[in-house]
């Protein structure tokens, strides 16, 4: 929002006041101003929640106090638009450079350094391995890339921080990785930071190709549980890098109201390509990579729902998946299923490819217009498009509340992954939306 205010001020010369929740005002006047926007936007803080409240509550907010300035809300707005600028508000140009982060920390005892890493919020609060020069040098042997090569410049939430190969190796040491994980970790590092939303997002990291076996990832029994070193550690590095290099810290640069336990591991999974039914392609091949390529794909989402028990003959798996998918937002989905479920879907239900199944979901998942638009993220993202008259949103937005609509109308936004040990016909439907794959081989 601050960038919109900046455009109005800078390009059009229109005095503007930003209105936001108090936490966002603190962020806007602090971190966002320093590292991203550069304009000292004047704000008022609107009490929250705003969405879902009746007009009487909004009236109370407007007639009440602005928590940011302590003034009556409307006085604060008028003042923001009419009070002369301070010298700081007139300043143009580059500020003095930020204090550079030294490559090495001041020598200290192990105990004190462990405390420091926690005090700085550089960890996930599980034990870490301290990144000594020897350990980091050993980790760097896992890639041919030079330590100072920039893997990713992290510009959100600001600061254009360079994530170098060495910084990735530091995080890998902290998380307890082995050097052979480095190509996967560097591919993952290109996608840092983690999903950062007040709605409490998480991420999913999917690994495909020969690298799965090369580094001993587990795509089989207990693939999604805490039973394998590579599965556990690689996802952990993603969060540590988001906090160390990405500078994402709770209450400062990330404001997820509930947070997500999934961020400890970021749902890091390897597809069980050996047990795919005939005709079902590995996920990375679906996305245009070669079967022999090793690929990491990172997605964002919130939720997964389990079938809990075995598939029942009387109600084929795609129907129960469809029922459970009605609980998801419709922004996208990833279905994670045991190989036995995939085999059943092919052999007894006639789904000869993952694409067939995705198409079936896009045509058969239905929810009411009221329920679809009742989701805050859907409403935030798409209601304005509906009000502009853009389809398919406009029709469903105007429809009677109990009208059935198809929220997953794009089959390409529904992915299918086969994971697990072929022990029980269990599956998860999730709302994770997978991004573009990254070639691991480029980081060897």
């Amino acid at each position, binding site marked *: 929002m601050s960038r*919109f205010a900046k455009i*109005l001020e800078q390009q059009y010369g229109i005095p503007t006041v930003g209105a936001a929740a108090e936490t966002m005002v603190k962020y806007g006047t602090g971190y966002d101003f320093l590292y991203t926007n*550069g304009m000292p936007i004047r704000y008022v803080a609107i009490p929250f929640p705003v*969405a879902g409240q009746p007009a009487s509550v909004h*009236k109370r907010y407007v007639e009440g106090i602005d928590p940011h300035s302590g003034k009556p809300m*409307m006085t604060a707005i008028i003042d923001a638009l*009419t009070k002369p600028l301070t010298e700081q508000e007139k300043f143009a140009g580059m500020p003095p450079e930020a204090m550079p982060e030294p490559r090495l920390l001041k*020598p200290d005892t192990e105990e004190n350094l462990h405390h420091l890493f926690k005090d700085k919020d550089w960890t996930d609060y599980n034990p870490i391995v301290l990144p000594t020069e020897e350990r980091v040098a050993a980790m760097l042997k896992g890639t041919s890339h030079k330590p100072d090569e920039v893997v990713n410049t992290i510009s959100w939430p*600001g600061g254009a921080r360079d994530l170098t190969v060495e910084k990735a190796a530091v*995080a890998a040491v902290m998380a307890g990785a082995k050097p052979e994980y480095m190509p996967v970790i560097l591919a993952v590092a290109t996608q840092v930071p983690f999903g950062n939303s007040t709605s409490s997002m998480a991420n999913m990291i999917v690994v495909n190709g020969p690298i799965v076996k090369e580094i001993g990832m587990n795509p089989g029994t207990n693939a999604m549980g805490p039973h394998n070193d590579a599965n556990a550690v690689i996802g952990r590095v993603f969060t540590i890098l988001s906090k160390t290099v990405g500078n994402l810290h709770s209450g400062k640069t990330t404001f997820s109201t509930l947070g997500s336990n999934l961020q400890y591991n970021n749902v890091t999974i390897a597809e069980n390509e050996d047990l795919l039914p005939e005709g079902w392609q590995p996920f990375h091949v679906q996305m245009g990579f070669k079967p022999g390529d090793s690929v990491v794909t990172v997605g964002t989402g919130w939720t997964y729902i389990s079938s809990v028990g075995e598939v029942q003959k009387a109600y084929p798996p795609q129907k129960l998946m469809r029922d459970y998918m009605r609980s998801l937002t419709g922004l996208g989905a990833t279905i994670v299923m045991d190989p036995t479920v995939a085999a059943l879907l092919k052999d007894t239900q006639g789904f000869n490819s993952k694409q067939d199944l995705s198409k079936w979901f896009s045509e058969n998942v239905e929810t009411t217009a009221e329920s679809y638009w009742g989701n805050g993220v859907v409403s935030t993202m798409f209601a304005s498009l509906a009000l502009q008259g853009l389809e398919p949103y406009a029709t469903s937005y105007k429809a009677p509340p109990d009208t059935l609509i198809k929220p997953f109308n794009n089959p390409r936004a529904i992915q299918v992954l086969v994971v697990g040990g072929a022990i029980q016909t269990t599956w998860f439907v999730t709302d994770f939306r997978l991004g573009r794959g990254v070639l691991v081989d480029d980081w060897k």
Partner: protein
Amino acid sequence: MAKSKAELITVLNPAATGKYAERVPLSPRLDTLEGKTLYMLDINWGGPEAAYSVFEQMQNWFAANMPSVKTVIKRKRGSYMVPDEATWKEVKDGGGDAAIVGISG
């Protein structure tokens, strides 16, 4: 031989240096809002009945307390994440003297 816990060790810094943004000044403020046109721009965060409804209450306040202020409520096009040059230009072309933009949560 086990290391003494009191032994000092050197470790690498996991954090990276951030770069400050170039400072851009605010535009000059108005002498007064009396007789001016104030745009209230809904960025669509929280859906269509969030900021818009708050802005309606602000509009009511101006009508009651500063009736010479002309207020215009507009929703920007697209979600809160995408820019909307057409709306910003519309504010200028529509004679907008000042703006409130929000509400971000």
